[in-house]
């Protein structure tokens, strides 16, 4: 059993470079179970790279990543998914030639331990929650941007994650589209799913997250309550580009 006080995710001194460019520079932080953490930072700050390190799509050069107390630094992505790490991609990555329902079914039959019958019913339920049920039998390659974003969320939900990583899921959406998506994410959070959310749409982010982490040039330059973070001089200067 996991100790309730133990963080669900813990990064210790994680670094990653592509050639001479350091994109993740000695990053350490911990996320307690059930928290919603927002990650902000300018383009190129290393936010998506940080996600790829947490999901295992990339391997860090140094440092360690612990998920539910287990060292997963060297564990491949598909095993991390089965252990409970779900993710959405910044640029939607649907399985184009499968239907929306089949996109979820792949995730539900491989990303969690359950029978195919259970997986089918779970997928239908998630399609209802994410308002994709009407497009269930449509090829994912033919979806609109909003539907693709919803599909990213729905497919991640289908793996039954304990920790859900959302990468700019609200980007490019209209105000109205954004609200429905945020409501779904809030509902998931209330159900106890730990959420880490990278987002530029701050008003959407601030309706869900309890803490904000600010990245710049691969380093953490702020971590704490959203109000305090947004008010801090460093963040305003570096992230919002305001001369103070």
């Amino acid at each position: 059993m996991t100790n309730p006080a133990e963080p669900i995710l813990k990064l210790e001194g994680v670094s990653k470079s592509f050639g001479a460019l350091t994109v993740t520079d000695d990053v350490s932080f911990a996320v307690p179970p059930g928290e919603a953490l927002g990650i902000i930072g300018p383009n190129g700050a290393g936010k998506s790279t940080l996600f790829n390190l947490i999901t295992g799509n990339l391997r860090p050069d140094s440092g360690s990543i612990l998920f539910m107390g287990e060292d997963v630094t060297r564990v491949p992505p598909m095993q991390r998914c089965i252990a409970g790490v779900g993710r959405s991609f910044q640029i939607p990555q649907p399985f184009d030639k499968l239907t929306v329902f089949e996109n979820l079914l792949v995730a539900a039959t491989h990303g969690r331990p359950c029978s195919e019958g259970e997986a089918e019913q779970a997928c239908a339920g998630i399609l209802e929650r994410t308002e994709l049920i009407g497009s269930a039998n449509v090829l994912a390659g033919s979806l609109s941007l909003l539907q693709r974003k919803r599909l990213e969320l729905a497919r991640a939900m289908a793996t039954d994650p304990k920790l859900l990583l959302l990468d700019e899921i609200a980007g490019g959406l209209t105000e109205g589209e954004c609200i429905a998506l945020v409501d779904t994410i809030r509902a998931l959070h209330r159900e106890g799913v730990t959420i880490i959310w990278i987002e530029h749409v701050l008003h959407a982010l601030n309706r869900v997250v309890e803490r904000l982490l600010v990245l710049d040039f691969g380093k953490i330059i702020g971590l704490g309550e959203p109000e305090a973070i947004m008010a801090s001089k460093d963040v305003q200067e570096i992230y919002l580009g305001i001369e103070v």
Partner: protein
Amino acid sequence: MRTPPYLVSTRTRTSTFGAIAAACLVVVAIVLPAFAGRGLIQDLFFIFTMLVLAQFWNLLAGYGGLVSVGQQAFVGFGAYMLFGSVILWGLNPIAALLLSGVGALLLAIPTAFFAFRLQGAYFAIGTWVVAEVARLVVAQWRSVGGGTGTSMPREAREVMWGVTWIQSVFDVRDSAARDILAYWLALALLVATIGGIYWLLRTKRGLALAAVRDNMEAAKSVGVDAARMKWMVFLIAAFGTGLAGGLIFLQNGRISPDSAFSVIDWTAFVIFIVVIGGIGTIEGPIIGVLVFFALQTLFADYGSWYLIALGGIGIVIMLFAPRGLWGLISDKSGIQLFPIRRRLSGGKLADRSKPSREE
């Protein structure tokens, strides 16, 4: 009002009809040697074995995303395993057929080990290189004829299981009886191939395979073991291709490195069949092999003009019907004989579902 439960099904009206028609066709094909002449049996043997090769290449490229141009390695190695074990160990040729599959499977392990390090076009060239290396190595094998090749020994042909029985039942000469035996084996291999691939694609592994093909990184992120899926299809395809290779050269009775490892016969023609028929479908290669056979019967005497025409047809189809002839037929009519789509119905979809067009 309570919403009805959700249902998932893959069957369509035409697929039920298709299954019955396929069963009838198989029965007709089994009893056909009683009525048909030797020429037709040989033609059908050619069609069946080419279709087996095409189905396995389609599994690799159309479902696994592994575009190999080195499948002749497994045809040739399988065929040489058959001749080698018959000539050197005196095995019954029918029993030796199994070794064709196993031999090709064993060759596929080191091939995959190297080729899987390469992506896309590099993978294709890598498999071709492996096939050429296999051809050159086999050409050094003196006891099966080296570079000039060899024939199936007369005594081995005479002991083939079932031949005397076929001779007495159909009242034919031994060479015709051997053709009938090879034809039945090809039919059995074809039914097992199509049935097996169809079954695989309908399981959750088939779904994972399609996910890996569409987007490997995303597939890994939802818990799919992408590497294992690629190994699985590559080994299955090698085994089946090796069996087909053994059978083709058993019927042929003669083997040489150049014919057994021919990139044109066992890969270029096979790709043509899959591409013009429709890649990524089971129906496509079936249409493709019939078109290919018709073209070959009509135009094979024109030599290189025939090959140029094949290439031209391939290009025209790729430009104007990228999903092949079956893609055209399926789009126009909505027919699917081997449906693998999992359609969700019932629940909140119950009131608005329109069963008119099949995806």
